[in-house]
């Protein structure tokens, strides 16, 4: 979607030309902003469930893509059964959350404190889920059309749905901040994350906190999967396409303060991907993401959230004094 130069002739049209050029520039800027915002929203949505589980439980959930797939399948199946789209999205949150809770109770809880073991076992789960879905539902499901139409400004057109997704990402960020800073669940979860033994001795039911947190992360993955479902092909291995962006977002964000890290890294990655993807195509954009991730962790091994967390701490320290 590059700006197409227009041919203009004659002096009498000069004023008009200028106005048109200004409009072209404005619409290019708007389009860049739109691309940036939507791709930041995409990174955030792809990563949010993963990030919650990593930050609160130190578990990398490699079945993340398949949880998104479960969300997308739930939304697609219920939508085609006549459930309104937005209701089916909410339904997928609960289906994926329930699934996550079962997964935590049966398997994941045996792997606390064993990072690499957790990675490997969740990968096994993802294989079983992907292949199982293929056997059960076949190679693909009918897709959902993108809700809400599009509008155009200048030479560019904008999809209303993607603007809604950006808005939902913002709401999710605010909601998660509220959940972890203003509710008793958030307080107990943070205490458990800091020092599980201590939290337990203070009467926090840590195993329930873990189940809830994993379930929340899974539910958010399902929600994202459902939200992104209209924009992709619904197939058993659809989760794979979210693996690379989601994990790059998490790696760049780091584990020091996951939500702030995910927000910052979604924006940085969108800023890398948008211009390169526009100029050289989607694949180059993704390669640029991997390179950016490698360079960022070479400079900041603990991700963007480490300096952010340090900054927050220093401000908190100053406020205390």
């Amino acid at each position, binding site marked *: 979607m590059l700006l197409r130069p227009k041919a203009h002739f004659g002096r009498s049209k000069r004023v008009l030309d200028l106005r048109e050029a200004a409009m072209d520039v404005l619409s290019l800027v708007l389009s860049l902003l739109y691309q940036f915002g939507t791709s930041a929203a995409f990174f955030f949505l792809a990563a949010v469930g993963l990030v919650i589980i990593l930050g609160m439980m130190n578990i990398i959930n490699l079945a993340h893509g398949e949880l998104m797939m479960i969300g997308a399948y739930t939304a697609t199946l219920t939508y085609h059964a006549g459930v309104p789209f937005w209701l089916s999205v909410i339904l997928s949150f609960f289906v994926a959350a329930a699934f996550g809770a079962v997964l935590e109770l049966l398997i994941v809880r045996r792997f606390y404190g064993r990072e690499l073991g957790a990675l490997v076992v969740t990968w096994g789960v993802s294989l079983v889920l992907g292949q199982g879905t293929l056997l059960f539902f076949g190679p693909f499901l009918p897709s959902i059309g993108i809700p809400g139409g599009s509008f155009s400004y200048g030479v560019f057109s904008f999809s209303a749905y993607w603007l809604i997704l950006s808005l939902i990402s913002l709401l999710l960020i605010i909601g998660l901040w509220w959940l972890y800073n203003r509710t008793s669940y958030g307080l107990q979860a943070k205490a458990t994350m800091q020092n599980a033994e201590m939290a337990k001795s203070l009467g926090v039911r840590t195993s329930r906190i873990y189940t809830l947190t994993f379930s929340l992360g899974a539910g958010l993955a399902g929600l994202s999967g459902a939200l992104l479902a209209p924009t992709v092909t619904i197939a058993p291995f659809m989760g794979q396409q979210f693996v690379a962006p989601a994990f790059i977002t998490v790696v760049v964000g780091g584990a020091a303060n996951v939500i702030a890290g995910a927000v910052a890294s979604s924006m940085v990655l969108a800023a890398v991907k948008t211009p390169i993807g526009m100029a050289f195509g989607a694949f180059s954009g993704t390669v640029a993401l991997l390179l950016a991730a490698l360079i960022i962790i070479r400079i900041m091994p603990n991700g963007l959230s480490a300096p952010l967390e340090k900054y927050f*701490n*220093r401000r*908190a*320290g*100053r406020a*205390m*004094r």
Partner: protein
Amino acid sequence: MVMEPTVAIETLSLNKTFGGVVAASNVNFKVLSGEFRCMIGPNGAGKSTLFAMLCGIETADSGQIFVFGQDVTHTQAFKRVRLGVGLTFQTNRAFHALSVRENLAIPQASARLENKEVGQARLEFALDAFGLDPNDEIKAAELSHNQLQWLEIAMVLVGYPNLILLDEPAAGMASEETLRTAKVLKHLNSTGLTTVVVEHDMAFVKDAAQTVTVLHQGKIFAEGSVADIIAHEDVRRIYLGRA
């Protein structure tokens, strides 16, 4: 060859903060070659952080560190070890899953060849005095607490260091073993091995130290002979009174 007493460690106005906590504030710390130095101070005084900065685990926010005259402020930890610095951790970090023989074999390839003769004599003395058999195939995890502490000291000696930093080597030991540890360390020191020990046990400090440094809130609070430090009013107040 008679050597002038050289400086083993010197730090110039070292600073380090973690968030709002000051772990080191303008620390000027100096240990001469061949010294036996003890460091005391209440919990959180910055003793372990100072050790971590000396051997390269933590980087200082500002200031400089010299080891045997070389500026090592920006030197990687493993390169400092090759300059002759050895460290044992506060919580024992011998390789518990490996055998005693393996624990003692692992450091061999990084041993400093220029120090071989005296280093080997120190190692053999320590193994003998601690009752450790370098060919023992028993897993380190099965050793007693005291033996594990001693094993880690021996592992560091395998690298033939000139300077050892020991973070509470006698922690958790009964008084008899504490004095045995002190005795072995004193003998090693008498062969010229510069020794810096963080220790809470005053029996150990009285027995072994030549000079004592007191850290408090990230600062060097007092420094002097054992007798001076014990007599020091403020030290008694901040440290001995609470201990």
